[in-house]
């Protein structure tokens, strides 16, 4: 099993180690075990090089902002919908629930191309010469990277499933005590549903951080781009592999740190995602 573990780790070890070496040494070390060892001319020069080449801090902030917004707002919007679907009686509930379940199978790749067309036609507010005007086209904005990913059929489904396992008698009791529905949601259901929130947060965090196809298409402006698309700046001429490795290390480390700190929650979240089968 240790050999297997090595097989799963070697590209990442190689990445970390190479990020500390000059590009020439990376290529010459490939022939030996030195490729995986931090030996020779070790320095942080590549990292400095990355900062010179691209606005890496801006890219990281963009990605963090977009990810936090998608996960944070998504938790509220999707859990409210899940609450309404699992605990309240209202007209159209059955229809909404069946549509949510039906849309689970639509992969993003199917709608990516028409969606570019669609968002390029949507109205948006712009500040121009101190005036608030409206214009058409969502391209090159932050919100085009966020809003389409807030509502998530799978998150709604998970919340609905989880909330419906909490006894309904709690609601009845709270209502007799004079609590409104929103209070029941906020004071009773949310505190009882930590695992559901953790699962949804984890399952939406990864794709949000790793977004590539969508920002590639809708964000041309350098200062709005997320880290994955920022990658492109390293392949214009002959790539400086040392800098490439430093950049990939910088955009991978935050995710690895989050993953290793919450690995228990990660594992159970993925297991929970398999339950839908």
């Amino acid at each position, binding site marked *: 099993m240790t050999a297997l573990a090595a097989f799963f780790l070697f590209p990442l070890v*190689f990445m970390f180690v190479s990020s500390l070496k000059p590009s020439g040494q990376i290529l010459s070390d490939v022939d030996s075990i030195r490729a995986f060892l931090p030996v020779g001319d070790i320095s942080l020069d590549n990292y400095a090089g990355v900062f010179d080449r691209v606005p890496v801090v801006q890219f990281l902030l963009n990605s963090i902002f977009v990810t936090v917004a998608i996960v944070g707002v998504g938790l509220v919007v999707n859990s409210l919908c899940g609450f309404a679907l699992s605990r309240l009686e209202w007209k159209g*509930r059955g229809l909404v629930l069946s549509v949510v379940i039906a849309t689970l199978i639509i992969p993003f790749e*199917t709608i990516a191309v028409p969606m570019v067309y669609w968002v390029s036609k949507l109205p948006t507010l712009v500040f121009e010469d101190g005036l608030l005007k409206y214009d058409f086209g969502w391209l090159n904005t932050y919100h085009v990277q966020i*809003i389409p990913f807030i509502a998530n059929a799978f998150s709604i489904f998970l919340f609905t499933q989880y909330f419906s396992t909490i006894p309904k008698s709690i609601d009845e009791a709270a209502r007799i005590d004079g609590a409104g529905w929103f209070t029941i949601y906020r004071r009773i259901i949310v505190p009882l549903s930590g695992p559901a929130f953790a699962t949804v947060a984890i399952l939406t965090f990864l794709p949000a951080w790793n977004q590539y196809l969508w920002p590639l298409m809708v964000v041309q402006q350098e200062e709005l781009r997320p880290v994955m698309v920022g990658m492109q700046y390293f392949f214009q001429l002959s790539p400086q592999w040392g800098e490439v490795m430093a950049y990939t290390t910088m955009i991978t480390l935050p995710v690895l740190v989050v993953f290793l700190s919450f690995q228990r929650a*990660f594992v159970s979240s993925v297991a929970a995602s398999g339950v839908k089968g």
Partner: protein
Amino acid sequence: MLQTTTSSAASAAPPAPVPEKADRTRVPRRSNRAARRERRTGLAMAAPAVLLLILFLIIPVLLAFGLSFTNARLISPNPPRLVGIDNFLRAFSDPVFLRSTLNTFVFAAVIVPVQAALGLLLAVLVNQKIRGVTAFRVIFFIPVVTSIVVVSILWKFMYQQDGLVNSFIDTITFGAWQGTAWLNDPNTALGAIIVLSIWQAVGFHMLIWLSGLQTIPEELYEAARMDGASPWQQFANVTWPGLRSTMVFVLVTITIAALGLFVQVDVMTQGGPLNSTSTLVYQAVRKGYREQEIGYGAAISLIFFVLVLIVSLVQRRLTRDKED
């Protein structure tokens, strides 16, 4: 599928609480007013998500459908014009599209059984009660949390003529077999992408298999051991039958992910060499976005979606069989 989405878009629009035809309150004593408020609150709470789903899921699906019958372009002074099934006829006579479809099928045909089997193997390995097994679970899962963009770049470097993969082959064969520049050779490029794709995603399916394994009651194994079943017999008669619904789920998720192959191709080969790694989604993005032919791109996306739909229907069938 498309019909249900249409009707929802239409019926979710009028939010006015219609007067109730029959008072179906769950608690008999509850007043009408409370029931009406419950109805209104329910709708209000669901509304943001429902609205966003309509705007960014259902309308784009309908658009994919509608645009595929037009000659729409991303930036064009002329409004889109209906062209009937021209885009589909064009697709099926376009050698690059046909090659992309073939590549997509080849990719799926290899990935699905191999990745599912390796995932199961890993799951059985990490399901043992030995020390340090959690650490291995975590390690096998690390490639999954690493961005596929990063993974593709790393492997692209390793696949070079003078890269890690070749130097490794050189070492273990004592120089007897020279590798090639894997991604530049039409015969090996798709295979190279397959290997890294399996490496990246197998940990995810290991965890799904693992959660399936853990639902099998320990008593069944005890009983089997009492009857003198060998480890292999235990696997064949206890484990495997207990994993049926997990298996359906794993196969379907791998198939759908495999049909959607895009990032690896975009980062590593741009569909080359000689279209040997181009895929359906890659073509849809290339035509629909990079060459701005939204109509044609939408038609290819729709063909991809039909494939996904077929896979999902097969899944339905397989899971229904189990319940009968």
